[in-house]
């Protein structure tokens, strides 16, 4: 799919990988709206990328998602591409020895990670797919997953959510393909973004890099290049492309 004048909705475009994706979409002439939970970040994005429309939206709230999709649809008349990128990185073991004895993974953080990373993707896609069906748009859904979907130690909630995203990618490709809608995934490995540095200590990052055959983290720009590649290749469908420097979890 050629991006020139395409109507694109991107979630989590304020920071990290999403910010790079936003940049590349604008460079290729797309009409872009970014939905993000960070109000000051959205203001800055609008200033840095003239023409980019911004919506304050928490993707884990289905009402906010429907409102956001409705506003972009009303403005554009149709939506060609949805990129489900917004997500939260989260590490916590299932159980551990704490100061007061054995502690277990709390339900609240489990729920939060599932709500944003899995349910948010579901809410956005059902809302956008309904618009695509309504307008018979032969569109595209891109889900940003993670190599952690294979099951990563210390990431129960995150791994489960991303495995769910992979399952949805395959399911939706089968359901929506007959309408000419493609559904694809990108699974980044550990990437050099603000959230990675917030969640992982320098020691942990050193250890992770030593496990990557290329001995480094991915760059947000490299992940965004992968997104452009799957947008452009019209026969890539129902699969998740790993961009991980060769790392195996």
């Amino acid at each position, binding site marked *: 799919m050629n991006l020139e004048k395409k109507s694109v909705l991107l979630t989590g475009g304020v920071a990290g990988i999403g910010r790079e994706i936003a940049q590349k979409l604008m460079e290729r002439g797309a009409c872009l709206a970014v939905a993000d939970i960070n109000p000051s970040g959205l203001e800055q994005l609008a200033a840095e990328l003239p023409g980019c429309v911004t919506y304050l939206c928490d993707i884990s709230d289905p009402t906010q998602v429907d409102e956001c999709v409705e506003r972009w649809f009303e403005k554009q008349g149709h939506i060609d591409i949805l990129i489900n990128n917004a997500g939260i990185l989260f590490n916590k073991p299932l159980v551990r020895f704490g100061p007061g004895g054995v502690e277990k993974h709390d339900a609240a953080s489990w729920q939060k990670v599932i709500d944003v990373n899995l349910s948010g993707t579901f809410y956005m896609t059902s809302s956008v797919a309904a618009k695509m*069906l309504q307008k*018979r748009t032969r569109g595209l859904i891109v889900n940003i997953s993670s190599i952690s979907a294979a099951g990563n130690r210390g990431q129960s909630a995150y791994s489960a959510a991303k495995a769910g995203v992979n399952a949805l990618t395959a399911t939706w490709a089968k*359901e929506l393909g*007959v*309408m*000419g809608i493609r559904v694809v995934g990108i699974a980044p490995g550990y990437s050099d973004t603000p959230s990675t540095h917030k969640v992982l200590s320098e020691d942990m990052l050193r250890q992770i890099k030593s496990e990557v055959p290329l001995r480094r983290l991915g760059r947000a720009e490299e992940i965004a290049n992968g997104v452009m590649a799957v947008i452009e290749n019209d026969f890539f469908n129902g699969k998740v492309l790993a961009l991980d420097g060769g790392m195996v979890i």
Partner: protein
Amino acid sequence: MNDKLNTLMADLLRMDSSQVNDELTMAESDVWDSLKHMELIVTLEDEFDLELSPEDIINMMSVKAIREVLERKGIKN
């Protein structure tokens, strides 16, 4: 029976075209579920180069009803 419609329905529902007749309804067919219905609508629009309204789509629950909608849009045998 519209030949093209008959063939198209048989292909979509994976039936022999001799089994497709006016009386065939969505409710009575195991294969003709809501996902198949979406595929049917998109295929009809492509094949007959037309746009179906939400009312048309809701009404098209049998081969007979589909044929009537197509006829109303000027598509005949």
